[in-house]
């Protein structure tokens, strides 16, 4: 079920009303109902893959229970590895089987001993990368004794399958979300209103910004040979806005929906395009994934401790794995590698943590220096996004070489004025709200109420006006 679909517009109020009016008697009922609603939400796409979620839930719940009773380190390790193998096994099979197979075949034929093997027509279960990492975090935290294993199967099932964040994150940690299912949720007016507001902003980002950028981006990327360098730049910039609007929009809807049900999810995007260097960008982009890799991969590898060469190795590992997480294609790996390269100078000169607060935190406008840094960071990110968006490495290289031609200085062949205006308006609102959890969290609170309401109505009108029903969420494919 897509968040921007009529199905969800019907599903959400029904589930919301039942949850607060009918099922609010006790905690068990609340959790059981959330699990049922989440399974319905997921099964709407393809009910067959529900079995995967249920299996994954049972395995990790069981392993958690066994870890609770197991004192011997070796046995605890075995249990943890079972969880890792089961979860990553599913992920590996559904997401990477054909990729590895194709690459093995190519490698063997390159070595002069061609082999034949049959690739499978595998459907990638929606959200598998997200819920797999979520359940893994539970097993690892229980193994590390950072978290008490749960005895409540419904609470655990709700944690794994909580529908707002089931298919595209944010990837929640058991330490944050699971305890919220141990306590009965009580309705909070302000939380619910805030949730609605965040949903509205998420829909605006997705429907108005991302989907309309996508239309131009697809046109340009699919036929890049026929466009001037300046048009290709435009295509890449629009893709930067598309992916941000798409994914952060989804996160906003997920977080807003959760708040309506009395649950708090962590912020997943913190205005990444206002970052002054790549390190800051990665602290602000897809925070739930970055911190997951930081805590469960980067730090166990040694993190920023050890020699410089070890640090460089760790940075490359984390970025390459992060790229590979996004998809079974070399383009994602190159994208990850490129970001690691961007990050390297900051690491080697020890300035990778120089921008912690949001830019111009106590000021209205950024300084020229900050503006220049933001521009450079955005440019570097956008170049990397070309690999992310391209069908293949060749496609990306052709695209980038197409940019660096004489036609770079010509007037772009595509000039969607309305989209330019929308993006400028979008950047303006994001800038104004950059100190908050999402841009319109406190936006217009000093205005008179009718004016603020009018602002919300304007957003709704824009959502209807600019909606294109043919665009899915990009991150569903991951």
């Amino acid at each position, binding site marked *: 079920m897509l968040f921007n*679909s*009529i199905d969800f517009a019907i599903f959400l109020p029904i589930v919301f009303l039942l949850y*607060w*009016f009918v099922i609010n008697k006790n905690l068990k009922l609340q959790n059981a109902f959330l699990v049922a609603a989440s399974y319905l939400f997921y099964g709407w796409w393809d009910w067959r893959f529900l079995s995967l979620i249920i299996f994954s839930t049972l395995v990790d719940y069981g392993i958690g229970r066994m870890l609770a009773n197991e004192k011997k380190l070796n046995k605890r390790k075995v249990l943890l590895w079972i969880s890792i193998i089961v979860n990553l096994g599913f992920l590996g099979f559904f997401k990477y089987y054909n990729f590895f197979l194709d690459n093995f075949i190519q490698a063997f034929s390159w070595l002069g001993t061609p082999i034949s093997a049959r690739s499978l027509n595998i459907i990638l279960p929606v959200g598998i990368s997200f819920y797999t990492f979520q359940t893994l975090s539970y097993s690892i935290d229980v193994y590390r004794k950072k978290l008490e294993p749960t005895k409540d199967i419904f609470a655990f099932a709700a944690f794994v399958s909580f529908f707002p964040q089931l298919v595209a994150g944010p990837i929640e940690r058991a330490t944050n979300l699971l305890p919220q299912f141990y306590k009965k949720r009580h*309705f909070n*007016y302000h939380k*619910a*209103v805030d949730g*609605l507001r965040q949903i509205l902003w998420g829909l605006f980002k997705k429907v108005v910004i991302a989907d309309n950028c996508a239309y131009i981006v697809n046109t340009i990327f699919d036929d890049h040979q026929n466009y001037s360098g300046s048009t290709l730049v435009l295509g890449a910039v629009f893709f930067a806005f598309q992916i941000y609007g798409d994914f952060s929009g989804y996160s906003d809807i997920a977080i807003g929906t959760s708040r309506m049900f009395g649950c708090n999810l962590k912020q997943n995007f913190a205005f990444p395009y206002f970052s002054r260097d790549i390190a800051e960008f990665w602290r602000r982009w897809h925070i739930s994934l970055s911190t997951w890799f930081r805590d469960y991969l980067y730090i166990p590898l040694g993190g920023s401790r050890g020699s410089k060469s070890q640090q460089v190795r760790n940075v490359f590992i984390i970025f390459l794995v992060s790229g590979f997480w996004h998809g079974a294609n070399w383009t994602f790996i190159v994208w990850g590698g490129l970001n690691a390269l961007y990050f390297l100078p900051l690491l080697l000169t020890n300035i990778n943590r120089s921008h912690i607060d949001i830019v111009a935190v106590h000021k209205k406008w950024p300084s020229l220096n900050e503006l220049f840094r933001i521009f450079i960071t955005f440019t570097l990110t956008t170049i990397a996004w070309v690999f992310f968006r391209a069908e293949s490495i060749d496609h990306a290289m052709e695209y980038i070489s197409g940019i660096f031609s004489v036609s770079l200085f010509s007037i772009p062949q595509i000039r969607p004025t309305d989209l330019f205006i929308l993006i400028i308006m979008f950047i303006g609102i994001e800038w104004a709200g950059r100190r908050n959890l999402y841009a319109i969290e406190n936006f217009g609170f000093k205005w008179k109420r009718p004016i603020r*309401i009018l602002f*919300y*109505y304007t957003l*709704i*009108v824009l959502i*209807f*006006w600019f*909606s*294109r*029903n*043919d665009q899915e969420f990009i991150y569903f494919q991951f």
Partner: protein
Amino acid sequence: MNSFLINTIKFFMIFYGSLLGLIFTSNYFISENANFKLDNNIDKIIVGNSQPECAYNDSLINNFKNLSSSAETYFYIYQKLKKVVEQNPQLQSVFIEFNPTNILIREDQKIWRDRYINHHLPNYNAFLNLKDNKLLALKNIGGYQHAILKSLGYNIERIALNRYNYIDSTGGYLYLNRHKVNKILDTLTPKNFNQHQKENIKLSNYDILYLDKIVQLCKEKNIAVYLIRSPYHKQFIGNQYETVFQQIKTERFNDIKFLDFKDFPLENSEFGDLQHLNYKGARKFSRWFNENIIDSLKNESIKVN
């Protein structure tokens, strides 16, 4: 909890209420002022989709106006015709394109699927009745909401710019300058089309009802109605529905004159593709149509199939 529900309902009621108010008001203005007036000498029109749109060069046909528009189904044609008939008492004949593709279920989807509803509804929303609106809303609520809002935008633009001329913006002859038939035939094995049976294909359930309504509307106004099949290529895929088409025609429209130009002699170079005439084909056919059909109509001695 209750105050949250009340406030949320209030919020959406004000939104939808204002929107509906604006839509109704602007629709009323448009409906009152929309200009579908044809030149006084025009007493024959043709309506339909892209086939007649490309086939009838109305500058070559006396007292005739081509009001066809690409992908326009009977549902939208009916909305247009209501106004055309109302504002043009001089109209004597209406030709309606009717060929095997018009009976398929695909035509129903062309009424409400996103790309079609977004294209057509903003033009005709002011002329739809409640039942027509209900049909669209029930079949595609998301697309309908979007298209309604777009309609409101169109309405406001028309009112602000005092642009009420609909005749030129809702159809006309399309000059098609392409010759793709030989290319298409190169990649196609010539077919003797196996005929589908009625039971094996999905037929239009909704759009075809609006053809009934069009016929009824014309009859009420004493306007002669002709179902007409514009020329298309022998290898056009629509041929596989010929048997069913003939069946439907006999069952439902037996009392309506049917002018069949399917086999009108044309060279490959006179087609834009298998379904549409290019400007050369349109020129040849329109001249012939003017000399042989329009004149015959005058004498009421037209030979029809």
